[in-house]
């Protein structure tokens, strides 16, 4: 059968990285084509190329038999491509019919004026709602009142209203209950029967086996292959998804690091108020680097935020050197010697209006001030000393102490943040995606610094989505899925397959 979409040898480069390297992908009418790969494998980039948002550097795209040199978002949607993102794009304060016909309201003539034809709109909306099993809703129901699953159905209805020939669903089941997943599958089967193609992106392997016809696997921006889903077991999928050669820039562990001291930091039965993570317990031994692995949204950062006091928890005790800590907010964490290098430097890491010196000094100054950081004096000469010490110790590249941190490169900004926590003499330092957006050279410097911190008796916890990073750096790795811990491996026994398996397990 003639495919609706045919993408051949698609290559997309970003400064410093090849995001997609000769990827082949096609969608036939009436099939569910699964796209599988780890975080950062290139699935989203490929779909952005398909939607016309990114222009590929090489490769060809054939849509409905016509080759496009310059596929724009407009041409893509005219060609029948419709993408439903994980973050749904419905407008909550509008009703269903307005969401469905946004920008293309049916019009009718009344005398010389052209007005919205609500009768046609209502009739069409009713028909579409019936198709996606939302008959209990009326065209004037507010979308904000619907559940996530129902909103998803509205998005699918919108795709149908647009006459979509290929509907891409980006992790559509990630926030659905088992029941809702089955409802979604019913609709997907119906879409297939109508001759539409569905691209299904998911990390849940059992779902893939249930609904998928063919599967294309990506790995680090490269093309692994396209297979019939029925020919692969879930173990095959994992192997193909992660089975890369381990090579690279991180530190391999010297043998002596397998000897650790006593437990210095532990967390018992931590549950967040919003239940994004439940019942998390872990121990950190002296000299050890503890890694947290899992898929995006598994609850790793959410756990760390709760430990650090940045998000409210309803239960859970945190112990440092046998002493129970009371942490209500990040200030308490800081006072107790816990620091966190957050994932988004610009939004949560440093102050754009502060010089390097001030960004480095602030944590120690706050730690030493009294009454929730309200009482205390700043000391210019001490600040300068702190900045110079960290500048020397971490080898930050800056033009002066007074330069704004926002003018540094990402890697050096990260070093300033690291310097801030080192100046504050923290006892435990949590790193959330510490090398995100950082060049290879600085990456390995940061790994070395982290190892040095651990050697000096500081507890180091790392959350990372890059498995090779965790495998190269950590002494033990805890894996999370759906807000719970689903596995824990010493580095000697940890492999990418095991991590991936625990990360995609649905035992939680």
């Amino acid at each position: 059968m003639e495919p609706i979409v045919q993408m051949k040898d698609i290559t997309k480069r970003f400064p410093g990285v090849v995001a997609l390297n000769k990827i082949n992908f096609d969608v036939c009418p009436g099939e569910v084509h699964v796209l599988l790969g780890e975080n950062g494998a290139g699935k989203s980039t490929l779909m952005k190329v398909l939607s016309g948002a990114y222009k590929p550097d090489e490769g060809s795209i054939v849509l409905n038999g016509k080759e496009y040199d310059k596929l724009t978002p407009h041409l893509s949607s005219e060609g029948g491509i419709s993408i439903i993102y994980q973050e749904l794009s419905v407008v909550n304060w509008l009703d269903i019919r307005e969401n469905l016909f946004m920008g293309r309201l049916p019009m009718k003539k009344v005398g010389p004026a052209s007005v919205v034809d609500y009768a046609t709109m209502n009739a069409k909306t009713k028909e579409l709602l019936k198709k996606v099993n939302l008959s209990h809703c009326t065209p004037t129901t507010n979308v904000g009142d619907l559940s996530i699953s129902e909103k998803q159905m509205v998005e699918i209805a919108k795709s149908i209203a647009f006459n979509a020939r290929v509907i891409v669903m980006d992790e559509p089941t990630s926030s659905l209950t088992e029941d809702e997943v089955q409802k979604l599958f019913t609709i997907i089967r119906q879409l297939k029967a109508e001759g539409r193609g569905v691209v299904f992106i998911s990390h849940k392997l059992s779902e893939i086996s249930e609904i998928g016809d063919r599967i294309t696997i990506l790995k680090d921006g490269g093309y692994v292959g396209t297979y019939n889903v029925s020919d692969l077991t879930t173990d095959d999928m994992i192997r193909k998804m992660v089975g890369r050669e381990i090579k690279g820039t991180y530190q391999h562990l010297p043998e002596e690091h397998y000897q650790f001291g006593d437990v210095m930091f532990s967390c018992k039965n931590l549950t967040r108020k919003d239940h994004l993570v439940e019942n998390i317990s872990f121990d950190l031994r002296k000299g050890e680097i503890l890694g947290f692995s899992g898929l995006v949204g598994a609850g790793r950062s959410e756990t760390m935020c709760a430990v650090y006091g940045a998000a409210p928890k309803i239960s859970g005790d945190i112990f440092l050197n046998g002493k129970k800590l009371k942490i209500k907010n990040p200030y308490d964490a800081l006072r107790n010697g816990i620091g966190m290098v957050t994932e988004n430097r610009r939004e949560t890491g440093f102050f754009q209006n502060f010089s390097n010196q001030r960004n480095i000094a602030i944590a120690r100054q706050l730690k030493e001030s009294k009454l929730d950081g309200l009482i205390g004096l700043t000391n210019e000469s001490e600040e300068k000393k702190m900045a110079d010490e960290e500048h020397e110790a971490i080898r930050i590249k800056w033009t002066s102490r007074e330069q704004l941190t926002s003018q540094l490169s990402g890697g050096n900004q990260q070093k300033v943040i690291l310097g801030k926590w080192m100046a504050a003499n923290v006892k435990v330092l949590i790193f959330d995606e510490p090398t995100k957006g950082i060049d290879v050279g600085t990456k390995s410097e940061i790994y070395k610094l982290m190892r040095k911190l651990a050697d000096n008796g500081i507890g180091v916890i790392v959350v990372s989505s890059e498995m090779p990073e965790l495998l190269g750096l950590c002494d033990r790795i805890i894996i999370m899925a759906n807000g719970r811990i689903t596995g824990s491996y010493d580095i000697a026994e940890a492999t990418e397959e095991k991590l991936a398996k625990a990360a995609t397990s649905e035992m939680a």
Partner: protein
Amino acid sequence: MKTKTIEKKKFTFSDYWDRYSTITILAIMIVVFGALRPSSFLTTGNLVKIMEQSSITILLGLGEFFAILLGGIDLSVSSIMALSGAMTAKLMINAGFDPWLAILVGIVFFGLFVGLVNGVLVTATGLPPFIITLGTQAILRSLVYIVTDARAVSGLPASFSTSIGGKLFGVVPVPIIVALVAAAVLTFFTVKCQSGRNLYALGGNTQSAWYAGITVKKHTIIAFAISGLCAALAGMVNIARLAAAEPNAGTGYETYAIEAVIIGGASFFGGIGKIPKVIIGGLIIGVINNGLNMVGVSSYYQQLAMGCLLIIAVTLDRFFGASRKS
């Protein structure tokens, strides 16, 4: 070793403007008015008068500075000024309070505390300070009318109006001293105190501040409390100068306060600004009003001049202020 090489950078107009923009504007205006009316504008008497007239704008601006530093705004300063003035006058005249005790109560209870309430409302509701203080501006103004029955409270003790409204050693008007002392204390606060530093951090990036361990709510409340306190100081100066409390005192003055802060180079988005520049900002407003009077320009045109100056000053900052370039 290698850091030394970059130090000899060329000093550009941008660097100059970044550091001396406000004082340059003030100097240019004094020169222009001085040239136009050398005999009347450039006299010691007139310059002292300008400073005295500016002291209320400066005091309000000093408080407003903290609200703007957080990326917010405080529209209620004018009403706090009126309320604290009216209540202090009432306490002196109707309740027979000693003037100094009345001042203390007026400042602490009808200034600091009211500002604190602003801060608590902002942090508790999570609404923009614009909305909260727009509300309290109206509420407090209404309270002033209610307690004064919309009539001026006059007959303040002479000891009060001559001490606060008078001149030290017969030369320096006390309102200027009040404004300068307040500015000195607040400069120390912003430069040397940890909580002052934290306010800059908070204004730069609330999220980062929270993750860095700064107690966001407490600091926000403090900023609004300082704003209320400064507004009450302005209220005291105002009733002392007039020897009476007018119920509509300070109506619309919040705009002057905001203008003084913005012309003084503070960023409206928060995190950037210096206290001493607020004084200059306030003086610029005083010079414009006084100078245009001297030159004989109708008061109808004074607002026009203020508006133009505000837009020009901020535009120049936008394009030449070195600290905003990144």
